[in-house]
């Protein structure tokens, strides 16, 4: 402690300066290299079979998203038809009317939502299709996964091409931003790709799954969708061929039409493809299907929002005594077979019973979150078979398939829904179309079905439908803007 004053200061100064320099030099760039916390980085994915399994699961999970099953899907695929009205109270969500009355413009948000929702499915599929081939895993499972992805991609493109016509055909993950912006493919090119995917899927996919895999795409689903896609292109030979194949896979009609749509009869013998949804206690993020909620009975705690309601025209369209009328529509004042009383004070003339989940099943979260969405049923396979057979002059087969559907609908009732016997091609076609309306009512089939039948102007004209315009909806304006007008608008919009 006897060092002189000034020297000690100098030492100190030098020491402190040294500290700064050391501190500085020790602070290498590695201090700045931090990993994302609690998030797996993408470069660690696509390594194992488990990764492949998870990625395929994501494809199916996304099918129950809002864009796929709720408002965006309903306003584009269901409400504009003559079988459905907007629903709810007159001033609620009035944008439904823009679709229902064919006054919608290209900036309406649901056009973009539905578009994006389908492309999200496609992205999940492309992720699997691009990445799974490089994973070392069970080869049989690998090819099945690829088949499943192709099925969902085809299903999504089918929903897009029906809604918008030709759309950008995105078949791979973009490598960089030079691949972000794609032009519209033609309608034919989109259909060709859908058929290619479905044909490849049908060749790989199994006819059925063990109980713990029920709900995945099957061979029957691929062939059935292929039949529907072919029907939209009037390829009747193919429709007949594919439906015959599906009819050989062991499907059957579920005996009770009303019970077919209840939760306990999901994935029944009639089910060709269903979007799977469940209620998981406490996990509202997984209980995210709002398909049932948005169509549920308005003003009832376990009901729902009351949209996409049956129209008077639908109610009056059923043949006298058709049991499907009561099984399809929840009428005010009705007591359901499950014991729920629909109040008479509800604001609408009825609600969709095919999305109905008995009130007693409601716990919390979205009402009816557990209801599967019946995408393709064996009844429709039969009706497609009937229509193709009739178009190809095979009246007997047409009548057989058609009357099979009517017989089930009739159930135990007598004196109603007599077998169709006409052999006149046009009359039989009309009968099949009418059968489709009654059988598939409020299952989001009617609108595009009438359009593909070529009689939309006749059926929807009174609601404002115009030929050479309303066959497709407008391409979302934001998408056109973001593409720098590489995307072109549909005629009339």
């Amino acid at each position, binding site marked *: 402690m006897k060092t002189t004053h000034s020297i000690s200061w100098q030492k100190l100064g030098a020491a402190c300066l040294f500290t700064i320099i050391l501190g500085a030099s020790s602070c290498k760039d590695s201090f700045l290299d931090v990993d994302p916390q609690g998030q797996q980085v993408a470069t660690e994915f696509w390594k194992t079979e488990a990764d492949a399994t998870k990625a395929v699961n994501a494809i199916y999970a996304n099918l129950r998203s809002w864009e796929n099953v709720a408002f965006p899907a309903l306003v584009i695929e269901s409400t504009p038809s003559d079988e459905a009205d907007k629903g709810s109270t007159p001033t609620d969500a009035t944008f439904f009317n823009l679709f229902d009355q064919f006054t919608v413009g290209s*900036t309406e948000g649901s056009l973009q939502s539905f578009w994006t929702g389908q492309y999200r499915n496609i992205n999940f599929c492309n992720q699997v299709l691009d990445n799974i081939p490089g994973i070392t895993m069970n080869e049989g499972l690998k090819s099945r996964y690829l088949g499943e992805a192709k099925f969902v991609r085809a299903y999504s493109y089918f929903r897009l091409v029906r809604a918008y016509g030709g759309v950008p055909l995105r078949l791979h993950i973009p490598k960089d931003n030079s691949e972000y912006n794609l032009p519209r493919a033609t309608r034919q090119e989109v259909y060709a790709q859908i058929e290619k995917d479905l044909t490849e899927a049908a060749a790989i996919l199994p006819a059925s799954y063990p109980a713990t895999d029920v709900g995945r795409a099957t061979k029957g689903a691929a062939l059935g969708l292929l039949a529907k896609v072919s029907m939209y292109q009037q390829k009747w030979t193919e429709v007949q061929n594919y439906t015959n194949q599906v009819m050989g896979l062991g499907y059957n009609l579920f005996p009770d039409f009303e019970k077919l749509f209840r939760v306990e009869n999901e994935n029944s013998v009639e089910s060709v493809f269903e979007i799977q949804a469940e209620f998981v206690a406490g996990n509202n993020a997984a209980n995210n299907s709002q398909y049932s909620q948005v169509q549920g009975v308005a003003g009832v705690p376990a009901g729902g929002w009351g949209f996409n309601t049956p129209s008077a025209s639908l109610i009056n369209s059923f043949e006298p005594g058709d049991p499907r009328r009561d099984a399809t529509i929840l009428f005010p004042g009705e007591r359901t077979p499950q014991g729920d009383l629909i109040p008479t004070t509800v604001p609408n003339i009825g609600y969709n019973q095919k999305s109905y989940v008995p009130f007693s099943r409601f716990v919390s979260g979205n009402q009816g979150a557990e209801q599967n969405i019946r995408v393709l049923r064996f009844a429709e396979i039969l009706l497609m078979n009937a229509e193709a057979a009739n178009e190809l002059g095979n009246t007997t087969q047409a009548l057989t398939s058609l009357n099979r559907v009517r017989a089930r609908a009739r159930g135990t009732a007598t004196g109603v829904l007599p077998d169709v016997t006409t052999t006149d091609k046009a009359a039989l076609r009309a009968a099949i179309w009418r059968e489709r309306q009654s059988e598939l009512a409020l299952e989001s089939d009617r609108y595009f079905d009438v359009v593909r039948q070529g009689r939309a102007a006749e059926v929807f004209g009174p609601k404002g439908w115009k030929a050479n315009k309303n066959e497709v909806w407008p391409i979302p304006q934001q998408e056109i803007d973001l593409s720098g007008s590489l995307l072109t608008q549909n005629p009339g919009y």
Partner: protein
Amino acid sequence: MKKIFTNLSVWVVFCLLSLNVAFAQNVTVQGRVTDAADGTALPGVSVVLKGTQTAVQSDANGNYSISAPGTGTLVFSFVGYASKEAAINAQTTLNITLTSSSQELEQVVVVGYGTQRKLDVTGSVATVKGEDITKQPSTNPISALQGRVAGVSIANNATPGASPQITIRGTGTIYGNTGVLYVVDGVWYDDISFLNPADVASISVLKDASSQSIYGIRAANGVVLVTTVRGKNGKPTINYNGTVGAQHVTNPVEMTNASEYATAVNEAYAIQGAAPLFANTNLGEGTDWYDQVLRTAMINNHQLSVNGGTDKSSYNLSLGFLDQDGIISTNNFKRYTAKLSNDFQLMEALKVGYNVTGTASRSANVPNSIFRALYTASPVVPVFKAPGAYGDPSDFNLGNGSNVNPQATLDFNNSRTDRYRVTGNVFAELKFLKNFTFRTSFGGDFGQDDIRNYTPQYFATRGQNTNISTLSVGRVATRNWIIENTLTYNNTWEDHNLTVLAGQTAQRFRSYTMTGTAQNVPFNRESDLYLSLGNSAGRTIEDSGSLSTAASYFGRVNYSFKNKYLLNASLRADGASQFYGGNNLWGYFPSIGGGWVVSNEDFMKDQTIFSNLKLRASWGKVGNAGVPINPTTLTVTQIPALIAFYGGIQNTGASINTLVPPALFWERSAGLDVGLEMGFFEGKLNVEADYYSRKTEQAIFNIPILGSLGTSNSRLLGNQADFRNRGVELVATWADKTSTGFGYTISGNVGYNDNVVLNVTSGSNPIDAGGDGLNNAVLPTRTVVGQPIGSFYGYQVTGIIQTAAEAAASGITGARPGDFRYADLNGDGRIDAKDKTFLGNPNPRFNYGLNTNFTYKNFDLTVDLQGVAGVELFNANLGNRFGNENYTKEFFDNRWTGGGSSNTYPSTSLAGGQNNQTNSFYVESGDYLRVRNLQLGYNLPSALVTKWKMQRLRVFANAQNAFNFFSYRGFTPEVGGAPTSTGVDFRVYPLYATYNIGLNVTF
């Protein structure tokens, strides 16, 4: 970083050991420091033995006592006064008067990593003293700045406990961390709501790029430096400040009553072609939901502090308690603060100290949705239809737009946020070799937030019920630290004054969030609310975290010659983990400034106009690393929405459903500032004017991407745009005291700012935003070249469609009489997106304030006015409708009821057709002027006070926001919001006035 600690500790110990301090023979010098003008005592004056670290401060009566060699010189300095040197010359009593005559230039201002005389500052730095902050009855220190600093715009959030939003010289950045940087005693924060305003000694607002530049990485939106109160040499001084007050809503919006509502809904139904909802519209007054739920709320605010010290050590301990009820019933905020600081002069050359603040708060929350619910709730619904039975909107078939009974919302809401925070720093400061000072400081910020929400099993209405109770518990932990080392060289020789600073800092920001939920948790008492009491099935748990780091080096040179010519230059280099992995890890931020003190020139000696005249100009660059952590790392998404079900069994799903930008660059701003400072009438009038222009380059934006990419993110981050804030500021202050004892200060300030987007890298793609919570994907703002950031964008209303023929000719699909008529701007005969235009600017062009203070004998009076002008708001409450939401009385009285009834207000069918699109009807002026603060105080006569063994006893009453003048049709024009959704009024806590009575006691 470990290495830094090791090095530091070794050398600090070495430094301590090798010190050999010899003191000369000392005398004790005592005295009193007073104001030269009026002779009042000056407390808190710094008394320093020149050339040493020995320092004391004057006490509340201006007295000081210091031990010093008889040959030494004492330097007296105090914020706002000219420093004075006095040789001791072996005297033991030195009474000093300080003069504020040339205060403008001699004032000491806090700048980045140090202090400067105001004379030496070449940038734009505004200082607000602690006493001006405590005079405001604000619970947050930043809120107290409103109207006091030119160019600083503050939007208060009226929610008790919430922080105000502060914008310095316009919006400087759009994405990520858009807030200013707060530096409290050297520690960096994003929010300082933990700080009790009474603990603030001074606030410096660094406004221009050159003064911000030393904080490079985080300075893009401005820097606010807060210095807290430290111990002063002298006997222990005990201070008590307390207020008790009441808060009451000032500008309620009148809604329709039941009869009017029923009429309005029936009219809307008729327009939609539906039968009337109400058979009888004669329903009387019905429920006034605002009246039901709003209340006059109490506020209690108390502070107790002890302050004192010797020339070897000093201390300050302060305790604070705030208990504020919200004007919405059940809303309450309580805050407890404790702050302790100690300084130790260990040796003549070595000073160490610390500063620690502990804060605990509890907020009984109301759900954000309540403000919207109160607006939309129907007056026909009774609060209760029978004892214990809530009025149910479903009884009236009101539909989804108005399906809530707000009383039930509040009654079944049990939401609580507890926040705990310990923060502060320890430092050591060593002077050596006469001119050098080395300072090292370690600061930490450790916080924990507990958020608890409980929804019981209940049935209130058909829309508000649940069959199972849910408890959700969230924990957020924050662990941030910052280490700073600076070396300062300061020397004055002949006419030169030079300060050189070199420094290094390292920072780490870490947070953890964990949230768990369980169902069916019983609730008989508070102690039941644990997740483990709930069902084991269906429990969820989520956790996440974030980590980022930054390393920085900086240096600065301040030079002045003859106190006339000034030069400041600095350079900072920052590395941020957000930019790791590219070629952009380091950002470099230089600055330079020059000044000319004209009034110190010889040729100015004989003039009498100016007491001060100074010109200054500066330029600097600042950066912004406030982007998401790891923004360019593509990650795997594994969320519950990707769970697939097969046969009813859950299967975890994961995939890649996002896009990330390939690279991100530092966002940089470069700014120029030119200022003129003038003093007249012997310093009674001071005027300061500034012009600035700051350009933000390669601003980071989230821009929309093609939906056909199929990503879950509909936007992609990138360096997308350039924009500019340009403006002028003017501050004029007149301060005087007459011989009769009447003293007054009148200070006015005004700032004008022009915000414009100069360039969008991605081309003409607009950036639409502001739609959070609004229906039908309405995005009311657009950011595009040539317009201010976040401008309101929509249709121009030209009138109301009166007839069916006009509707058919309107070009609007689905138009009906009573709908808005929109301008067909492109003249193609139809109204579509191409006809949208810019409707308003949510960025205030003018901010102004007028602050006055009058003292006469024992009375003091403060009147502060504050306002903004040249700003528009989007009244989303009015136009955002799903169905049968309530209407304002004003709308109802002016509505269209048939051909010719109104050409400005539409029919009540606002939810129909294109009426709820963003349009000029919903865009309104947000200009306002308010009496921000009124305060009258009285100091009890000192004779009386002394008898009570007190130094001071003051009683006062004040009112905040008592008078507000605006034309806006919402509750308050003070809306705020993120940069691209600023001014969108949707769920804003209503404006209220606060009336307090209070007491200041000093022992």
